[in-house]
């Protein structure tokens, strides 16, 4: 069969794996963006910078404090999430009553500043971060590095846990209700402003967690976020803002689509997601899983 397609199986499965890994990052990032947009009405353009901050935070924890990867996996999202909470308290909360455009401009500007500061301090060539799980397994049809398998399993677990909390728990019902009608939820006695702050902190922490996860797989570099975020926004547009599961499925699916394009028509691999986006916008402007709002 592989001869028929003119593609060696090693290349096919290798690209599928890479696609799944990219998809894992798309899913975690678009999940956070969707949750933040739903409740805050802010298109969080800082998301890429916060992903980068997560990776750098892991690097600093290792280099400056000797805290290894597994510690950073817990600490970095908390630290970067806290910076998100400060950001929400100081700036974002002044914009909720305004058009989306203002939140977008603020967060875009902030991400330029953050990226500039990191580039000034660390240069733009990137810093290495050691692989905490060296080695791999030969599956017969391909070689599977342990760390890559970990990325997929862990991010899938985080995505599903987030889905479960939002769709199946009491806390999640507050979040869903406040996304629809914050003023009524608050009139039931729930401190919605605090919930908004914590939700933003959570979404930012999720981006930072993706950053930590990415650090050993790619270089830690100030521009790693801006490279990723454009694709992630396309993923969000394709999936639509309406559904948590939609963000997860779209993220992984588009990673795979990208990987397969690399095998069969490499010339289009960097544009295929945007072609899909254009088609989806033509046929379903609210996105595959989205609802008009």
């Amino acid at each position, binding site marked *: 069969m592989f001869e028929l397609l003119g593609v060696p199986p090693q290349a096919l499965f290798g690209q599928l794996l890479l696609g799944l890994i990219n998809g894992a990052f798309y899913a975690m990032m678009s999940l956070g963006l969707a949750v933040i947009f739903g409740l805050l009405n802010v298109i969080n353009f800082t998301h890429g910078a916060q992903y980068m901050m997560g990776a750098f935070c892991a690097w600093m924890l290792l280099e400056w404090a000797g805290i290894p990867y597994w510690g950073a996996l817990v600490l970095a999202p908390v630290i970067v999430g806290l910076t998100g909470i400060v950001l929400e308290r100081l700036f974002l909360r002044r914009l909720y009553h305004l058009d989306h455009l203002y939140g977008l401009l603020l967060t875009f500007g902030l991400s330029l500043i953050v990226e500039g500061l990191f580039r000034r301090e660390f240069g733009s060539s990137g810093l290495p971060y050691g692989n905490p799980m060296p080695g791999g397994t030969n599956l017969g049809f391909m070689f599977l590095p342990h760390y890559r398998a970990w990325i997929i399993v862990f991010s899938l677990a985080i995505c599903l846990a987030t889905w479960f909390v939002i769709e199946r728990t*009491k806390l999640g*019902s*507050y979040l*869903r*209700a406040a*996304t*629809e*009608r914050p*003023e*009524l*939820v*608050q*009139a*039931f*006695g*729930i*401190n*919605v402003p605090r919930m908004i702050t914590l939700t933003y902190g959570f979404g930012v922490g999720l981006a930072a967690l993706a950053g930590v996860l990415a650090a050993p797989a790619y270089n830690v570099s100030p521009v790693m976020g801006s490279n990723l975020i454009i694709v992630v926004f396309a993923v969000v547009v394709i999936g639509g803002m309406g559904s948590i599961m939609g963000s997860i499925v779209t993220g992984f699916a588009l990673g795979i689509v990208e990987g397969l394009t690399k095998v069969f028509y490499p010339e289009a691999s960097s544009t295929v997601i945007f072609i899909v986006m254009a088609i989806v916008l033509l046929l379903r402007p609210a996105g595959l899983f989205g609802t008009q709002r």
Partner: protein
Amino acid sequence: MADRASDAELEVAGLHGHYGESHVLHGMAFEVRKGEVVTLLGRNGAGKTTTLKAVMGILRSRSGSVRFRGAELIAEPSNRIARMGIAFCPEERGIFASLNVYENLMLPPEVKPGGLPLDEIYKLFPNLKERLGSQGTKLSGGEQQMLAIGRILRTGATLLLLDEPTEGLAPVIVQQIGATIRLLKERGFTVLLVEQNFRFASTVADRHYVVEHGRVVDMIPNAAVGENVAKIEAYLGV
């Protein structure tokens, strides 16, 4: 305030409210005594709904005085007001589409002990029990209204603000809601009701305040409704 003369549960005085630039409430003043059912009657746009939202703190730009059991609420955010024991049922019912019926019912947190247990709410509104797994907004209008009232009975709030609970509902459901309000009164709840339908209001309420242009212009005890029908109809423009 130990020396309060009345047993007022809710005292509103000199209440002003704005929506952006437009001044909607012009010194609303009324009181609701403990265990009473009181209505705000008036035409569309008179400021009845706005009054409820100002009491609840949903309308932020408000001034004057709103006292609940002697405590001033005017500067409190709505979540704190709810925690003191006031609950609000909005005119458009506010059923959440992304929550199922059970989640909608359980959404408002318990603010005080002494709310109705779930069993009693199911007894009042048997339809709800059969549809717990349905999406909230898939219910009929009447069922949504029952859900909107049912969920605030659980919380232990003692003062209920109901905004046009009978609007657009079939007569048999209006009767069911009337029976519910009478039962709530029996149970010692205090109810402030906004109504356009004064025939319905006169079957449940103790007193009626007539609202025009953002202020109270008249108060009619329910016992005196019979001799004041013509006057009330003139107020309401029916």
